[in-house]
């Protein structure tokens, strides 16, 4: 009986599901949209707004309940400021960095101009600075999920699920059912179809003789496949300044997740650069490599800087080849900041097309915390989130100035991307996610402090 009912229900679902899938595929291949996703996002925003109101009234009621908390009321009535990193616990006074040394905000004069004798109280600057960084620092916070200003009805976020009101719980429950039992299966079907289609098409294109036809066909197929894949995570991407789209050269972007590639490839075709992988990623890399030139390095080759630069240079010199897409941060950052750009891609000496990608984290966290979760888990997280909503800005192409070295050029491009995407511009290396600081980085603060001291 149960089995019969199940089969009947399944078959009833079959026709609508198939027709929706076909509709999506057709729309994706034509690059059109019915605007359903945008309407869906609008609806979500209304729901979040409702949730926010509920939560704030709930908090107000709770606060009226206990009166012990008023002690700090006069301490600081200023609201927590948002500086691109969610909510802050403290306002930092002293900052320390390996290139700029020590900066103290409450002292207006440049400490480089201060000349004074050593005083026992000098130690307090270091102490305060150190404890401030323990409470809040610029680097490690970039490697964990950004905190939300209010709950987005996903129980995995920093707010977690807790009972606030019956209506909110019902909405959360409905959302859960929709995400896991409607959106997820549907997105999985699209993902499998997209990947399958990519593998099949590239295999055929691989047999075509090199030439204009092959290039154009490949471009068309790539756009189509990536648009299907972008729908597999309900990506809603707004592209700005499309006149600055890369045609050749190197396109550099800030890096949040492997999803970046799908997002950017919905609008332009890129040659990808990266380490050759095994498993499913390896299959995809080889498939894409059949249809056009991508650059996959073996593990042993990555260390050889000269070889890497040479292969990049060969690629960009051939104007028939696609622009290269490179993430110079070399690791995923939580999309609140841009961290140090590795100089490699800026040494090639070609035009750089900077791109800034900013995700709207209310709809789901796009950041891949690779030290905490595997790639598959991350992708499942994305596919069970509300949507991937993001803005992509194409910046005007940039070239190295006379007298500028690769590192300076890289920093200039990084600042531009940070400015456009509304991200914090950091000089710290993203590799600090795993590596320790260099001992020599201690020297700059020491040197600066020494300069301050008047010695006889």
């Amino acid at each position, binding site marked *: 009986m149960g089995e019969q009912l199940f089969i009947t229900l399944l078959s009833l679902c079959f026709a609508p599901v198939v027709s929706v899938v076909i509709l999506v595929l057709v729309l994706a291949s034509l690059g059109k949209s019915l605007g359903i996703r945008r309407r869906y996002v609008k609806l979500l925003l209304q729901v979040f707004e409702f949730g926010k109101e509920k939560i704030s009234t709930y908090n107000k009621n709770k606060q009226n309940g206990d009166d012990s908390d008023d002690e700090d009321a006069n301490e*600081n009535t200023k609201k927590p400021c948002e500086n691109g990193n969610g909510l802050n616990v403290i306002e930092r006074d002293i900052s320390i960095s390996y290139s700029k040394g020590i900066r103290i905000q409450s002292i207006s004069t440049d400490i480089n101009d201060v000349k004074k004798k050593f*005083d026992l*109280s000098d*130690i307090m600057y*270091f102490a*305060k600075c150190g404890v401030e960084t323990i409470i809040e620092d610029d680097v*490690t916070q970039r490697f964990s999920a950004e905190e939300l200003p209010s709950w987005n009805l996903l129980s995995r976020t920093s707010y977690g699920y807790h009972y606030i009101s019956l209506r909110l719980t019902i909405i959360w429950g409905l959302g859960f059912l929709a995400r896991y039992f409607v959106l997820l299966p549907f997105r999985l079907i699209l993902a499998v179809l997209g990947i399958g289609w990519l593998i099949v098409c590239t295999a055929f294109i691989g047999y075509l003789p090199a030439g204009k036809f092959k290039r154009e066909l490949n471009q068309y197929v790539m756009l189509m496949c990536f648009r299907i894949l972008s729908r597999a995570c309900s990506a809603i991407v707004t592209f700005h300044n499309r006149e600055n789209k890369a045609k050749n050269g190197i396109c550099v972007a800030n890096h949040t997740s492997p999803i970046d590639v799908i997002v950017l490839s919905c609008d332009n075709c890129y040659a990808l650069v990266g380490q050759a992988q095994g498993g499913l990623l390896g299959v995809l890399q080889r498939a894409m490599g059949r249809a056009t030139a991508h650059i996959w390095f073996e593990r042993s080759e990555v260390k050889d800087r000269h070889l890497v630069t040479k292969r990049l240079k060969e690629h960009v010199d051939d104007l028939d080849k696609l622009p290269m897409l490179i993430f110079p941060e070399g690791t995923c950052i939580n999309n609140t900041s841009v961290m140090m750009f590795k100089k490699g891609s800026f040494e090639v000496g070609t035009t750089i097309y900077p791109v800034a990608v900013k995700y709207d984290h209310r709809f789901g966290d796009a950041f891949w915390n690779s030290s905490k979760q595997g790639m598959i888990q991350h992708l499942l997280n994305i596919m069970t989130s509300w949507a991937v909503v993001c803005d992509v800005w194409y910046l005007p192409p940039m070239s190295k100035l006379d007298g500028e070295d690769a590192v300076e050029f890289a920093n200039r491009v990084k600042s531009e991307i940070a400015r456009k995407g509304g991200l914090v511009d950091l000089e710290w290396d993203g590799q600090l996610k795993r590596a320790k600081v260099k001992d020599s*980085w201690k020297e700059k603060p020491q040197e600066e402090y020494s300069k301050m001291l008047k*010695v006889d």
Partner: protein
Amino acid sequence: MGARSSMQLQEEEINEIQRETGFSQSQIVRLYSRFTSLDKSNNGFLSREDFLRIPELAINPLGDRIVHAFFQESNDDTVNFKQFMRVLARFRPIKTNQDKNKMNTREDKLRFAFKMYDLDGDDKISKDELLAVLHMMVGANISEEQLGSIADRTITEVDYNKDNQISFEEFVKAMEKVDVEQKMSIRFLN
């Protein structure tokens, strides 16, 4: 994943920490989320490595001494959340109308600074200790000889009982004119 763990922080614990340190409920919850994100091994304790994984602390010339202050609260090589909060409490701003038993009095703040110099924990700063700390602060930029004369001068200036060491009382006296409140307080937001 601070959230899930901040759930684990019990109401009574929050209240206890609030009574002891004077931090507000929301500050305690947020600092707990920071504590758990520093706690890479997820065992409820911080080790020295956990602290020094913060790059800005690792490049602080006195980073090791600051970390050491946290471990003085505990007798073993770990710091739990309460101990963590007790050290942070020293850096709360002083308020005029507050209870005396909070941990952020002028004396508490001075004690923290004093202990950073007192390497062997004998409640006295000897010339060698002062030299060693000076060395951490300036690196190789100032010669041993010059550091020696700085240390000598500093000690003679404040050493009232002429034992060639600085006691805590002498240290407090030397700091009389210093705006300790400003230099040793962090602006906590609500």
